[in-house]
C-alpha cells in the first residue's frame, strides 16, 4: 500500500475550489493525486460538475443574448409603428384643423359679399316695392329669401367651425342654467307655438356654458320646429349612469325613422323639403360636435309619429358633488 497522502490539504483545496466556483470562477478545477481514492473521486466529480456548469452557463448566456436581440428588434418595430401612428394622428389633427380653418375663413369672408347683396336687395325693396310691376316685387322677394337663407347657413357654419377652433377648458357648469338660457333665447318661438317646456332635476357637470346652451337650444328648437300637428311638449331631464350623466330632451313631434338616426348628426343632412321644414342641416352636427368636445356621446331614440328623445352623456363630477 502506498502511503495515503495527507487528507487535510486536499480537502482544503476542494473547499477552496468550491468557493471559487460559487463566486463565479467557472475555470476553477482540481488536480487529483492519481491515487484514485475517494478524495480523488470527489475531485474528478468536482471537475466534471464545473465543466458542466461552464457549458450550461455559456449556453444560457447565448440564449439571453439572442432573446435580448429579439426583444430589441421587436421593441424597435413597436417604436417604429408608434412613431408612424403618432405621425398619422398629428397629420389627421393638422388636416382637421386646416379644414376647420378653411370653413371658418370661408364662412367669415363670405359674409362680406353677402352683406352687399343683402343690403342692396333690401335697399331695392325699400325704395321700389310697389313702384315696379308685380313680377319685380316677386323677384326681389326671392332674392331676399336667398339672402336670408345664406345668412343662416353662414352663421351656422361659423358656429360649427368655431367649435373646433376655440377649445375652451371645461368648467363646473350648472346644466339647469344652460337650459334656462337656451329656453330664454327661444322664448319667441315657444310663445308662438304655445309650447310647454318642462325641466326635471338637472346636475352640475363639467362643461362649457355657452356650448351647452347652444346644444340645448338646438335640441329644444328642433322639438318646436318638427311639431306641426300638435302643441309642442318638450321635457328635459337627466339620469345618473355610473361615472356620467345622461341628459335627455324629449319632444312629441313627428319623430325620426330609425334608419336615419345616424345620418341626422352629419353636417348638411336634411330629411325634409325646404317648404315643409326650414333649416340649414347644421344644427344637429353642432350638437354632436359640442357633445364630442365634452367627451360624451349623443344619440336619438324615436319612432315616426311618436316624438323623439335625444340623449347625450356628460362627465359627472363626483368630488365636487360630495363636497357640496
Amino acid at each position, binding site marked *: 500500500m502506498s502511503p495515503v497522502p495527507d487528507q487535510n490539504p486536499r480537502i482544503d483545496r476542494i473547499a477552496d475550489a468550491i468557493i471559487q466556483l460559487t463566486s463565479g470562477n467557472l475555470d476553477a478545477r482540481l488536480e487529483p493525486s492519481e491515487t484514485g481514492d475517494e478524495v480523488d473521486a470527489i475531485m474528478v466529480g468536482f471537475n466534471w460538475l464545473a465543466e458542466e456548469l461552464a457549458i450550461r452557463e455559456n449556453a444560457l448566456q447565448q440564449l439571453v443574448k439572442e432573446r435580448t436581440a429579439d426583444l430589441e428588434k421587436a421593441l424597435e418595430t413597436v417604436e417604429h409603428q408608434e412613431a408612424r401612428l403618432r405621425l398619422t394622428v398629428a397629420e389627421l389633427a393638422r388636416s382637421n384643423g386646416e379644414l376647420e380653418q378653411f370653413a371658418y375663413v370661408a364662412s367669415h369672408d363670405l359674409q362680406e359679399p353677402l352683406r352687399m347683396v343683402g343690403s342692396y336687395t333690401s*335697399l331695392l325693396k325699400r325704395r321700389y316695392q310697389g313702384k315696379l310691376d308685380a313680377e319685380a316685387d316677386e323677384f326681389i322677394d326671392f332674392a331676399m329669401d336667398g339672402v336670408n337663407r345664406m345668412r343662416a347657413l353662414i352663421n351656422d357654419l361659423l358656429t360649427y367651425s368655431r367649435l373646433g377652433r376655440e377649445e375652451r377648458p371645461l368648467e363646473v357648469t350648472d346644466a339647469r342654467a344652460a337650459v334656462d338660457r337656451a329656453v330664454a333665447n327661444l322664448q319667441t318661438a315657444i310663445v308662438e307655438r304655445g309650447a310647454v317646456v318642462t325641466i326635471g332635476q338637472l346636475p352640475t357637470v363639467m362643461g362649457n356654458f355657452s356650448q351647452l346652451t347652444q346644444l340645448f337650444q338646438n335640441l329644444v328648437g328642433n322639438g318646436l320646429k318638427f311639431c306641426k300637428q300638435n302643441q309642442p311638449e318638450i321635457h328635459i331631464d337627466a339620469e345618473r349612469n355610473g361615472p356620467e350623466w345622461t341628459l335627455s330632451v324629449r319632444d312629441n313631434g313627428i319623430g325620426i325613422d330609425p334608419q336615419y338616426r345616424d345620418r341626422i348628426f352629419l353636417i348638411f343632412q336634411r330629411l325634409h323639403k325646404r317648404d315643409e321644414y326650414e333649416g340649414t342641416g347644421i344644427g344637429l352636427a353642432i350638437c354632436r360636435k359640442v357633445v364630442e368636445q365634452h367627451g360624451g356621446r349623443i344619440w336619438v331614440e324615436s319612432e315616426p309619429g311618436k316624438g323623439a328623445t335625444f340623449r347625450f352623456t356628460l362627465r359627472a363630477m363626483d368630488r365636487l358633488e360630495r363636497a357640496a
Partner: protein
Amino acid sequence: MNFSGEVVDILLVEDNPGDVRLTREAMKEAKVRNQLHVVSDGVEAIAFLRRQGTYANAVRPHLILLDLNLPRKDGREVLAEIKQDTDLRRIPVVILTTSEAEVDILKAYDLHANCYIAKPVDIEQFLTVVKSIEDFWITIVKLPPR
C-alpha cells in the same frame, strides 16, 4: 346744436364702393346738411388730412369714419398717425368696420379711437347706425372748434 345751417364735413375712409354708397344713402336721410368726402385707402386718408398733393385744398373734417381693413396703409396705422398728431387728434374718429374680433376692438381703443362700431349686416340697422352716428357726434356732442 353745433351746426345750425352750417355744412358738416365728414371724411369716410372706405375701400368698398358698395359701403361708400350705402353710407351716402344713409347720410342723404340725415337731418343735418353734410358733405361726405371719401378716400379709399390709408395713404390717401393721411394726405387728405395733412392737405398734401391733390388734397392741398381739402377741408378739415368734423368727423372721420374709418374702416380698419384698407389697402396700402390700414386703418390701425391711420388711427395711430391721427392720434399722435397734436393737431389732428382732436378730430373724433369713429371706427366703422365688419370686424367683431375682440383683438381689433381692443387695439382700436388702445390707439384712442373715439368709438368702435361693427357694421350691421341688416340694411335697416345700418341706416339706424349711420343716423345714430350723425345724431350723437354731430348734434349731441360738443366738438372742438376747427
